[in-house]
């Protein structure tokens, strides 16, 4: 018992510098988001401030069109997640349950697409969306996010599907169920947790994406949150930092909470799916 206590103290002592650096930006966000505008550039710079100005948030909401960007982000992330999952579930099922010609090649293809980053293809993607007339259309982001996330979702789902015993479906067939019935009544109910977890990760990835959104969305009413916040900072003479920080607080805290709750699934999924 005391051994564990001592170890805990040592470990926390070792980890604390890293944790301070990790938590530092969060402190900066909060402290800036609630301070009066006049105290942004005090000299010497200081953490302290005279009053909590919660109105910063409501002012920011109006001045930065936060609501519009929020809706855009929500639409893109939800739709991209839905498309990615809809296409990945059958593919992951096939990978987990069937042997078929070309399976190895498909696996390699998935690995390759996972490695392809949007930035390398961004010019080609822009030209593609141009020719499809999808520039300035949020659906261009839906399609690209879905495509770039699919390798991850297929792997994640496949690794969970593999842990659902094949016996169960066979037992259902023996009980007189067709393949479709066994899929709907036996397999899918058991796979729901995996699908929820995968969906949330895809959502977060889409929610946070920057490069493609910056490139494809040319007019400010189509901006997603990261681009909208970036636009408040980039190329401006006068940056309203208290508004920017208020916006980052609102955009990141909900996602960070959900993520903290789910990170243990990611550790498992990574260990099972991505690495193996």
């Amino acid at each position, binding site marked *: 018992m005391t051994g564990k206590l001592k170890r805990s103290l040592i470990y926390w002592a070792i980890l604390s510098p890293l944790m301070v650096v990790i938590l530092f930006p969060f402190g900066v966000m909060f402290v800036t988001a609630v301070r009066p505008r006049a105290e942004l550039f005090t000299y010497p710079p200081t953490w302290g401030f005279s009053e909590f100005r919660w109105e910063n948030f409501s002012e920011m909401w109006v001045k930065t069109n936060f609501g519009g960007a929020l809706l855009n982000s929500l639409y893109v992330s939800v739709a991209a997640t839905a498309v990615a999952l809809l296409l990945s579930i059958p593919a992951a099922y096939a990978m987990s349950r069937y042997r078929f010609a070309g399976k190895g090649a498909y696996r390699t293809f998935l690995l390759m697409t996972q490695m392809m980053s949007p930035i390398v293809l961004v010019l080609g993607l822009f030209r593609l969306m141009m020719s499809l007339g999808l520039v300035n259309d949020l659906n261009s982001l839906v399609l690209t996010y879905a495509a770039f996330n699919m390798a991850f979702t297929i792997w994640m789902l496949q690794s969970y599907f593999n842990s659902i015993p094949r016996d*169960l479906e066979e037992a259902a*067939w*023996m*009980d007189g*169920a067709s393949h479709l019935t066994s899929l709907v009544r036996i397999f899918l*109910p*058991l796979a729901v947790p995996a699908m929820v977890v995968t969906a949330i990760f895809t959502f977060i990835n889409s929610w946070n994406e920057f490069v493609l959104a910056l490139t494809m969305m040319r007019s400010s009413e189509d901006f997603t949150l990261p681009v909208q916040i970036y636009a408040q900072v980039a190329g401006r003479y006068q940056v309203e930092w208290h508004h920017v920080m208020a916006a980052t607080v609102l955009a990141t805290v909900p996602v960070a909470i959900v993520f903290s709750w789910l990170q243990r699934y990611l550790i498992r999924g990574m260990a099972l799916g991505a690495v193996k």
Partner: protein
Amino acid sequence: MSSVTIRGVKKKYGAMDVLHGIDLQIRDREFVVLVGPSGCGKSTLLRMIAGLETISGGDILIGNRVVNDVPAKARDIAMVFQNYALYPHMSVYENMSFSLRLKRMAKDMIDRKVREAAEILNLSKFLERSPRQLSGGQRQRVAMGRALVRDAQVFLFDEPLSNLDAKLRVVMRTEIKALHQRLQTTSVYVTHDQIEAMTMADRIVVMNAGKIEQIGTPLELYDTPANLFVADFIGSPSMNFLRGKLEQGAVVLPDGSRLAASGQGAAGQAVVFGIRPEHLALATDGTGLAAEVEVVEPTGANIQVYARVAGMPLCAVFTERHDFRPGQTIHLIWPEGKAHLFDDATGHRLQGGAN
């Protein structure tokens, strides 16, 4: 209920032959046990009957119908899986009623059947529980119940008891046997435990490396094993084998001792003389086969003696209590007609046996 006919059935996985032409006729109402060492293809054969594996060659008939291309759900077969395969998101009741609900049977009818089966299996108290909340033995019974409510043509069991502890296995063995006597459903039961096979089967099919070695009732296999493999596989402890040469109605061991035998074989032929440990008895008059005691293991009910004869190991089981010491020489005899004789080259039984 229905017979099952297996004609020249083969199975290949890619280039690998797993079953090399199996012929087997399972009669209506019969309880047939497939035994054999791990990897010999028992599960594969069972799953082909079930329709869970494709058939690479030959025919499988249920009744008079060839079912090679009939999907599993249309074969009207119930199966108990080794890991039970209970649906984890359904209660015991839902597990047992799943097949009936798929058939759109009337609710009250389903209820009657499930409760009846639960009564037989002592599961009435657990119907609302989820499989997670059951012990291993109870889960096993739910798996049985799921098969039971079906009134299927054939029951298949793939090592259904292998996940239970030794005591429970004996209990469930008896229960399954009693159930079969009551329902009389044609059953195929896979195990690698030869005691399970001996106690439960109407007929046993001994398999080895994708082939059938022998088919017969438990006593036929015990009394007249067709070859060395079956002789070795059936019975515990295993049959003793003494290698020697056939000479004028006797087997001559390397050290010159002679064992009377009346097998038909050419003089000088290399043969294997087989005798079960439980058939050996002590000679009181100093005649009989001399063996040097190496290890003595009392089990309480009997004594197992490991000894050496002409450099070859030999085991004897005595129910009486003797006081043996390692190094001691004992003399062994056996009743007439209990010895076996096999051709050493082919492993086949030599007709006529030995004495």
